[in-house]
């Protein structure tokens, strides 16, 4: 494919400048890590560690992979990416997650 040498993405501070690959293919893996999506959140999932049974439902359902797991246990939500959709709170049958208003 004919690649254009032009560099784009300079305007986005967090984005590394990159080549325009035909079909908009991004060849560096893991580039979505740069693009933090947590700032969109209006509700915040508050996790009560004591009520948590570590059933892993929230981890499975979170569409943003925002529930990190360490040594087979879920740890505090990753608020850099959590969009506050509330799915984890809905799925936790142990009422260990409640959605509260995000304070800015």
């Amino acid at each position, binding site marked *: 494919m004919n690649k254009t040498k032009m560099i784009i993405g300079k305007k986005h501070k967090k984005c590394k400048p990159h080549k325009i690959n*035909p*079909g908009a293919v*991004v060849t560096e*893996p893991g580039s979505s890590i740069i693009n933090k999506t947590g700032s969109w959140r209006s509700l915040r999932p508050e996790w009560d560690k004591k009520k948590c049974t570590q059933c892993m439902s929230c981890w499975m359902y979170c569409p943003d992979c925002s529930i990190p797991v360490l040594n087979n246990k879920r740890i505090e939500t990753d608020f850099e990416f959590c969009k506050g959709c509330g799915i984890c709170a809905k799925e936790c049958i142990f009422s260990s997650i409640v959605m509260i208003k995000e304070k800015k």
Partner: protein
Amino acid sequence: MVRKVMEAATAVAEGVKLCKPAVIPLYPITPQTHIVERISEFVNDGDLDCELIHVESEHSAISAAVGSSSSGVRTYTATASQGLALMHEILFVASGMRLPIVMNVANRALSAPINIWNDHSDSVAARDTGWIQLYVESAQEAIDTTIQAFKIAEHNKVMLPIMVCLDGFTLTHVYEPVDIPQQGNVNRFLQKYKPSIKLDTKKPVTMGPIGYPDSFIHFKNQQKEAMLNALQIIKKINSEFNSKFHRKYGDGLIEMYNMKDAEYAVLCAGTICGTARVVIDNLRKTKNMKIGLIKLKSYRPFPVDSLINACKSLKGLAVIDKSFSFGFEGAFFTDVKSTLFNEKNKPLVHSFVGGLGGKDINTKDFEEIFNKIIKTKKPICEWLLKE
């Protein structure tokens, strides 16, 4: 070379088999059904080693094709009419992601009223989706063009999806003698597909990301360039095909019939070109009329230079559209006029819209068209409504 009498739909299926796609998502719709039925039989009988995905709609068929093509394997599907309309959203995704999917469209009218017969309104409505569109006239051209289509789409200067459009019923269901190319020859003509970028766990990439305002237009510009490259590549592959299989279709973009000394001509696409040829032969013999045919094979990319050359010494040109842009005019007509607009020597261009929903355009219609455009001094815009 095996010469057999078969339906054009079967010929297309034979062509697909020879190209060995790895994945075919399929959803049957009249009048395309015979194509995918025949392909299913090939797979069932072990004659084609390929993953058939039976999907629940055409939207899913083309979505599955996008997925499969992204993973770097040769991908094919076929559709028609409402099915193509249902694919519309994903057609842009396929071309934007530069995926060389090959798809046959068995041209059929769109509802309402419900109509299963042939016209070109389905594929012409998909004109601006970024797909290459080739229209064919015969069963032989259908199989040959389908084979060429894989090579055009996968060419590294093109990398665009391609529709090979054949008239529903008047071609798909018509039996004609067809030369089926030999597998070995097709293997030599069409090499294995080696994508430059694909989804691969060993070398991960992201496909289908967001394009911000500063980058989006650049990707579209690349698509524009690829489409322009396709003009040359289609021509090149047409002559390569000719040297291997001894068959060619004009320059690959348009085909000219009796145009050398022609003063008047018709321009059309698909099966009605055959009717036009007969009428031209007759009128040349009996009335000594200097008339010819320009067959539009490649609608996108539009063959601007070939067309300008073909029209240089014409006095009148009748463009026949089997689709209509309501509130304006036939799409082929618009494009032909705009192509000739800045030329010094150009014919008077006339518009005839007909054949909608399967209404015949017969020899009488063509005779009348020729008689009218030879007599008139003013441009004609007309619908062919007579019985």
